[in-house]
Structure formats: C-alpha cells, structure tokens
C-alpha cells in the first residue's frame, strides 16, 4: 500500500490509498451557499447514476454506460466554479459533468433509455451527452480526441474575445494517447484558455495505470513537457477541486494560458456496465469507498454548522427530482422512425445525392 506520492515499481502494482485527514479544507474560504450547492450537485449525480444503474438492471437502459460513482467531487467542483457560458468537454463517463452544467435530468435519463425525449433524441446515447445551450459541448467516446476539440473552443473564445474558458475532462489512461500530447503542446503554444482535468481513477478499463505508464503521475508528471506547472489535487474533496478550478479558470481568463490538473479519485464500480471491477484489490476498493466524496462533504457541512435537516431536505428534493425524471423518461415515446434520417446535414436531412 502506498500514497500517490511514493514511487512505483513496474509490474508491482500496489494500491494507492486516499488521504487520511478529511478536515483539511474545513477552513477554506468558500461561501456556505456554494458549499451547499456543491453538496446538492454531488447528491444529484449520485442518486441519478444509481437510478441509471437500477434501470440497467431492469434492461431499460440500453447499450453501454459508464458511471462516475465516487468521482462526483470533480464534476461538482468544476460545475460550481465555471461561468455559465464556459464550455465543458467530457468523455463517455459524462453523466455527472452533464448534470453539473445544469442540464435537466429527464432528457439525460431519457437518452439513456433511447427515447424521443432524450437529450439527443436517442441518436447519441449515454456516451455522447451534449447540451450546447448549457455549455455542455459534448461527451466523446474515442480516447483523446476531445482534448484537441476543447482547444478549438478555447481558440474561438480567444479570437472572439469572449472571456469563455473550455474545460476538458479525461481519465488517467488518456494521458498515454497521442492526441493528449498534441493537444497539450498546442494549447501551451497559443496560450489557449483551456483547463485540462485528468480524473485519475488509477485504472484505464481493467488495467492499472501504473503498469502501463512511464511516470508515477500520469498527468502531473507530464506538465513540464508543455512548460506547465504540475497540479496534483485530491479529486474526492469538492472544496479542493473547487478552489483549484477557480485558480485555473482565472488564469485562463487572464490570458495566461492552459492548466493541466490531475485530480486523484476512484470509481466505486466497474469501468462500464459490463465490468464487475474484480481486478482491483478489495482493500483498495474498501479504503476508497470509505473516502466517499459525499460522506467527506456531508461531514464537513455538519462540522461547519449546517443542520442534518437541511441536508436531508436536499436529499429529499434530489430524490424527488430523480423520481420525476425516471417517470418522464420511462413515459417517453420511442423516437419517430423518420428521426433516424434527420440532422446529418445542416439542412436537416441526410441526402447525399440529387
């Protein structure tokens, strides 16, 4: 067992354990309103994704799906720190990031069910959640690509002088693909207003990141290759994320260029629907489950004087919202057959000939 700071010997993957002290951020200068917002946001993600999982089990959610149970603090921390018109670029593991931008639950859940009232009308599915009106610029399912695309949105913001920032989330495993390297160098060269956030949950699909990466910290140890400062944060503490997000967003908005943040976290479940996640040592899983970002945060709010009742009220509201979304999604129609033939082109159609 070792902490994220010890050295790694290849082929001897040992567990990385969470930090011990959960009170570190109690004294941070963050509004209590923001803090309850962080709690509510994480709670929404948690309950929503558990519901999605239940609906899988009932065979109502189709295809594949990738949950971020246990990783909510990152999405929530950024969601609260971002400006309304900032851009989010997420991966197939994008439910939480979508909700974090204020996208309503019903269309998201309906999309997972392949319904006409789905966010994408049933044409994208769980891996491609997008809501342009909320700044949610897409969930991307091929590793690496969206880092380069986030650069483009940042370039556009820079050119238009809009002050918007693009925030791009991706996993530890993604740091080893070529597009990562191209995107980071490119962003640094043009000082693009983009924040790259590596959600290091220590596994790609079923393989430990330590076994297939030349450095200990897949993102932070690469920062200097792009002239950037290494930023390694606790991805399970929403306050730490929120503050780091604010710093990176400010830097980008000030014209000082990109940041690369590595947020250490853990997924409670398997990689995707198909995966029981058995390749992980059980003591590692247990230790991280015990460092659940929701528990960490609930305890902190209590310590900071928020009443248990207030938290229970939030929990109840969230549950009610998820219940409503579930009903609305299940009640959704199947997509109209014609809809398969719309929106390939800007003219609304799909025709390739006259």
């Amino acid at each position, binding site marked *: 067992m070792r902490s994220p700071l010890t050295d790694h010997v290849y082929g001897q993957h040992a567990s990385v354990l969470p930090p011990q002290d959960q009170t570190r951020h109690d004294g941070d200068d963050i509004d209590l309103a923001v803090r309850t917002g962080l709690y509510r946001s994480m709670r929404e993600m948690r309950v929503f994704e558990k519901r999605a999982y239940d609906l899988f089990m009932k065979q109502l959610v189709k295809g*594949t799906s990738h949950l971020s149970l246990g990783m909510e603090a990152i999405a929530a921390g950024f969601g609260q720190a971002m400006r309304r018109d900032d851009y989010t670029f997420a991966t197939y593991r994008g439910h939480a990031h979508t909700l974090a931008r204020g996208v309503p639950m019903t269309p998201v859940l309906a999309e997972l069910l392949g319904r006409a009232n789905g966010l994408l009308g049933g044409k994208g599915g769980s891996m*491609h959640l997008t809501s342009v009106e909320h700044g949610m610029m897409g969930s991307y*399912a091929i*590793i*690496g690509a969206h880092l380069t695309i986030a650069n483009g949105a940042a370039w556009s913001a820079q050119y238009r002088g809009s002050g918007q920032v693009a925030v791009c989330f991706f996993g530890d495993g993604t740091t080893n693909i070529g*597009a990562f390297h191209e995107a980071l160098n490119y962003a640094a060269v043009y000082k693009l207003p983009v924040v790259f956030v590596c959600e290091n949950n220590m596994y*790609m699909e079923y393989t430990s990141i330590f076994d297939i990466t030349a450095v200990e910290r897949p993102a932070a140890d690469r920062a200097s290759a792009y002239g950037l400062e290494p930023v390694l944060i606790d991805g399970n503490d929403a306050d730490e994320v929120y503050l780091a997000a604010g710093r990176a967003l400010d830097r980008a908005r000030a014209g000082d260029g990109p940041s690369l943040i590595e947020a250490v976290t853990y997924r409670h479940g398997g990689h995707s629907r198909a995966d029981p996640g058995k390749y992980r040592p059980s003591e590692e899983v247990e230790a991280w489950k015990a460092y659940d970002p929701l528990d960490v945060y609930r305890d902190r709010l209590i310590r900071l004087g928020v009443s248990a009742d207030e938290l229970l009220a939030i929990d109840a509201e969230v549950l009610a919202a998820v219940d409503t979304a579930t009903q609305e999604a299940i009640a959704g129609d199947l997509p109209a057959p014609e809809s398969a033939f719309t929106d390939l082109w800007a003219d609304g159609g799909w025709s390739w000939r006259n």
Partner: protein
Amino acid sequence: MAQLTYRDAVARGIAQEMRRDERVLLVGEDVAGAGGVFKTTVGLLDEFGPTRVVDTPISEQAILGAAMGAAMTGLRPVAEIMFSDFFAVCWDIVVNQIAKTRYMTGGQVSLPLVIKTGNGGGLRFGAQHSQSIENWAMAIPGLKVVTPSTPEDVVGLMAAAIRDDDPVIFCEHKGLYASKGEVPDGDIIDSLGTAKVRRPGRDATILSLGMMVPRALAAAEALAARGMDVEVIDVRSLVPLDTQTILGSVSRTGRLFTVEENPQLLGWGAEIASLASDECFWDLDGPIQRITTPHIPLPSADSLEDLVMPSEESIATTIEKALQS
C-alpha cells in the same frame, strides 16, 4: 466436436497458433489480465505468460507500430484494436506503413501480422463504437481483410491469417460474439480468399458478410417459403476476393443482391457490383441491388438502430420485390 461461442473461438484460434509457433505474440489493451474487453482472449495469459500476451497503454499507434516492427524482424504478432472504430486513431500505421512497406522496399520487408478487431453494430453502442470498417481496409492495397461469420470459420481463418506472410485485418463481429456453433476438434486451418456458399439457389445470388450472413440466410428461407430459391454466399474474405465463387454464382443466377451492414457509399458491395456489371454484364437478368445501412452514422437507440440496419425482413422484402418486378 464441441459447441463453441464465436468469442471463445477467437481465443481458441489464437491459442492453436501460439502453441505451434513461439514467434506468435498477442498485444493490445486489456488483452492479457482481463482476457479482452469482449472476452476473446481469455486464458491466453495463463497459458502463454506475460512475455507473449501483453497488456498495453491506450496507444493504438504504439501498439500497431510495435506489431509492425516485430513482424519486420522475425516475429508474427497478433495485435488487437479493441473496437474497429479506433482504427481511425492509428490508420497511418495501417495504411501508410504496414500496407505499403513490402512494396516500397522492393520486397525486402515481410509483415506477417494480424490485427484483430471488434467490428460492427447492433449493440446500441452508438456511432463511434458500431462501425463496419471492412471497406476502409479493402480500399488500401497491401491489406488482406477477412470477416468470419461462424465459430468454426473464426478458428480456421484466424489460423490462416496468422500463418499468412502478409498483414491481415481480422474483423470479428461484435454482434456475433455470443453466437454458438459446432467446431470440430483438433487444429483447423482455413484459407484466406475463399467465399462459401451457405445455401445454394437458382433465382438470385445474395452476398453477405459477418452478421449479415445469418440474416441473409433467414431471409432466404423466408423467400423459399414464397417460392424464390436464392443462393446465399458468405463472402468471408474481401481481400483476396473469391471472384470465381462470387461471379460464378452471379452468372448462374443472373441476379445479384448484396447485404451490407456498412453505410451505403463505397461499402464492399459497391466493388463487387462494379465487377459484376463489367464481367457478368451479359449474364445479368436485372438490376444489381445493394441492401445496406443508409448512408448515415448508426443511431444508439435500439429502435432506431434496428430500423436502419438490414434485417431479415428488409432483405426478404427488397429481394422479393425485385424478383417479382
């Protein structure tokens, strides 16, 4: 003789060749410890150990480059590209390097390697994880391309691909992984470049590939019940292409239909249609028709995905209409 799933047949084919030839290695994401995300390589790590069965980073270019460099220098690697859609991130290594190097070097370099990949739709994975990319590869001189439709063919074509001294793109259909079939005991070695007549018939020729083979066969049975006797050919190998079997059949029946999972434009059937319209022109009794997914990406919703891919019904209906007009 045992019942085997298509998925297990993949591992069996690879194991058969790894036992025979220690130059055969397997490399790819999650292929070792996890036995593959589609469970097509289960047991190989245990049997052959971590020097021959290698888990990699998410670095498709590095994976295929490693396979190429190893093949150039005496090994016979099998590399996995998990979903065929991911060929797009390493296409340079495939089409510019692997496909062209023997030719460009005047024959100095041999590239005995196999790239296996999960291909095709029907699993509600959406547009970036469901493509049928046989046509991408068929368009590139220097690549051989096979797509088996049965577990027995999986074993035999995998063996043939590994023994072949040229690069082979081995497309496994994701939608068939769970399907089962009888597989003879002992070593099986099939031949690249051979199509199989799955159902003989007189009135028309249906060409099909991968998951479209069972659908074409089912459509043929439905048509038989309505008095039309159609021949169903499993193309199996796009390069080399068994034009003798294929065009021979077309010349006999006088009608050609292709059933292609890919979007229409430049699906493999286009090439065969163009060949037939040249070489079988005088034998044709009616238009050549291609039954394909329309030229759109695959939608993720189950109802839409089912709607746009060729189905038993759409195949039977199209052919019936054509034969009766």
